[in-house]
């Protein structure tokens, strides 16, 4: 037993160095060279100013912007999480109903049956940067009204921002931050 203890201590130190230090340092070192923004997370800029990270969703609740999905943590990227509410929880269902009602007040031209489910449910991490194409489309009329823009122009903008499934696999989606930056630039 004693020999195993001494051997065990030594091999523990050796493996901590190999897998707890050398391996992550090596990946981080290579990331500095090959990864977007040197592995520090790819940034999104507007007129030279950093306004966010490519992967990290941010809060858009203003009527003049395309709104993102509800977030349980209010898009706090320092303390993330989901609702963990079960599908039949009455409090949860009341909360979803409240989101539906709020949406209909802000978007009076829309019928309830048109609201896509991603717009009234919270993501798992609370930082979902995307919405579905349908969720972007049903906000066009509201934004056209607030910004006094042509609906056809906005429709073209949304379609230009729809990302299709990669190699025919996965989902279609719209990156909310990119879309809103482009929206601000639209005349």
């Amino acid at each position: 037993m004693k020999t195993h203890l001494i051997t065990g201590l030594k091999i523990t130190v050796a493996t901590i160095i190999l897998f707890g230090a050398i391996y992550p340092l090596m990946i981080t070192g290579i990331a500095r060279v090959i990864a977007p923004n040197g592995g520090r997370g790819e940034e999104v800029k507007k007129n030279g100013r950093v306004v966010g990270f490519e992967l990290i969703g941010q809060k858009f609740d203003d009527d003049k912007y395309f709104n993102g999905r509800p977030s349980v943590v209010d898009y706090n990227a320092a303390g993330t999480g989901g609702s963990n509410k079960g599908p039949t929880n009455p409090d949860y269902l009341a909360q979803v109903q409240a989101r539906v009602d709020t949406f209909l007040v802000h978007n009076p031209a829309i019928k309830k049956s048109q609201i896509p489910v991603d717009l009234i449910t919270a993501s798992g991490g609370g930082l979902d940067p995307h919405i579905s194409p349908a969720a972007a489309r049903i906000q066009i009329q509201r934004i056209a009204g607030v910004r006094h823009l042509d609906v056809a122009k906005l429709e073209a903008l949304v379609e230009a921002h729809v990302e299709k499934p990669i190699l025919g696999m996965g989902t279609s989606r719209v990156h909310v931050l990119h879309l809103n930056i482009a929206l601000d630039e639209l005349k």
Partner: protein
Amino acid sequence: MNSEILGIVVLFILTVVLAIPFGRYCVKVFKNEKTWLDFLAPVENFVFKVCRINPNQPMDWKENLKASLTLNLIFFVWAFVILITQAWHPFWNPDGIGNMEPTTAFNTAVSFMTNTNLQHYSGETGATYLTQLLVFCFLQFVSAATGIAAMASIFKAIVQRQASDLGNFYQLFLKSCTRILLPLSIVIALFLVLRGMPSTFEGAAQVVTLEGDTVNVARGPVAPMVTIKQVGTNGGGYFGPNSTHPFENPDYITNFAENFAIIIIPIALIFAFGFYIGKPKVGYAFFAAMTVVFLAFVFITVHFESQGNTELAKMGIDNSLGAMEGKEVRIGSAASAFWGVSTTSTSNGSVNSMHDSQTPLSGGVYILDMMINAIYGGVGVGFINFFVFVIIAVFISGLMVGRTPELFGKKIEAKEVKIAALVAILHPFLILVGTAIASHVQANQADIGWLANPSYHGFSEMLYEFTSSAANNGSGFEGLGDATPFWNILCGLCMMFGRFIPIIGPLAIAGSLAAKKYVPESAGTLNVESPAFVAVLLSVIIIIAALSFFPALALGPIAEYLSM
């Protein structure tokens, strides 16, 4: 075909196709044959030399076990000490994170030592960069290697004839790390950083958003940790919400790569068994038995998640994207459901959607999957659990035809069957007794504040937590308020028993089988690769799981489904 379904079909087929050559490669590693990674030998030899290990010294099952358990004890002490002192370490803590509360530290140390990676803390607020790397990243390698080494000893026992040598633990352990886990991790981690996953030692970044809010964006050395979390069927995420966090799972392609990483080694090791004993068909037969169950589970969960939450459909909204609560738009319902089955089959426990918010029967399938805990299973231990079921199935088949059962030329006698039965019973015992105690406490203290959801779903939350602990899975119905001494200690104990007894028992069986005389095959020998035996094996698995767990499942997920 729908683009979401196509994604998971391609993923599964690709993984299986690559798992066959990878399984062959693993056998070469276990048998010390030449591989194209032999340039790593100087590193391994240096470690052996410094540690004064003779890698070729034979060890019997008891020596193997002593070495393994001692090493795990050291891992536990190391992890616990670092966790309760992490605030005081002078570097790799740019965000000034504090020490971990002792019972949470106990739970976390056990959890990472046992390859469970249940997390009662949240990564971005509860662990320093130093802890993430020197404890979590490190333990996700070595706990996986502990399981693989035990499995390789069992492989060896089956081909041994009247011998006690089950291979040298230290050699199997280190080479599992350097030859199996490390190369796969490096390739996948580099792929993930190319897709934008961060890997940095800089602290949180402050940005002012387009709407003018100031937010701090937590980051860190994410990619190396996330990769080994998947490759070693660990599941311990860098951030609290695991692979739902966009930094931990940037897009559909990384989701594909991570899900591949979850199942590749577990599947490869099933094939490896066949190659190791020189009967590849046995590996294929075992794989087929597991795959029947796996695909059945995938069908159920993909169906229900794509259909969506019917309670929301009743409100009259457009439910065509599926059950999106707790899911990410870039991943979608089908890939989330497939991942759910992958992670609960393989005792991985990482999530790319919140299982607590999934539809009732999907949640039920995940719990059942962990109750069986042998559909591919965790690296190494998955095969070991399956091996226990094989022994029981062989015994029952033997009884049916009235002849002493044999497995791979070894007689299976009372001793082996007793140990196998005890190991098989332990799992329901831990889960059901634990859930019963928790339900009792909850029933008497309704204001205890554990459950995020009332009624049947609340019961499922507790059942899930114990199942996940005993199965060393690590995922959770995360609505459960589990960072309390009750859950920390009880789940910690479940993880320990659920980890080590299913290693000790089967190793003892292996030691006993290795010492037995070889009985040549005859016309009366049970053919384990035959469809008839696969059917018996499947029945044994389903009967044990169904009989033990059906009442509990009926009270939780099934009752919730019927109430909708």
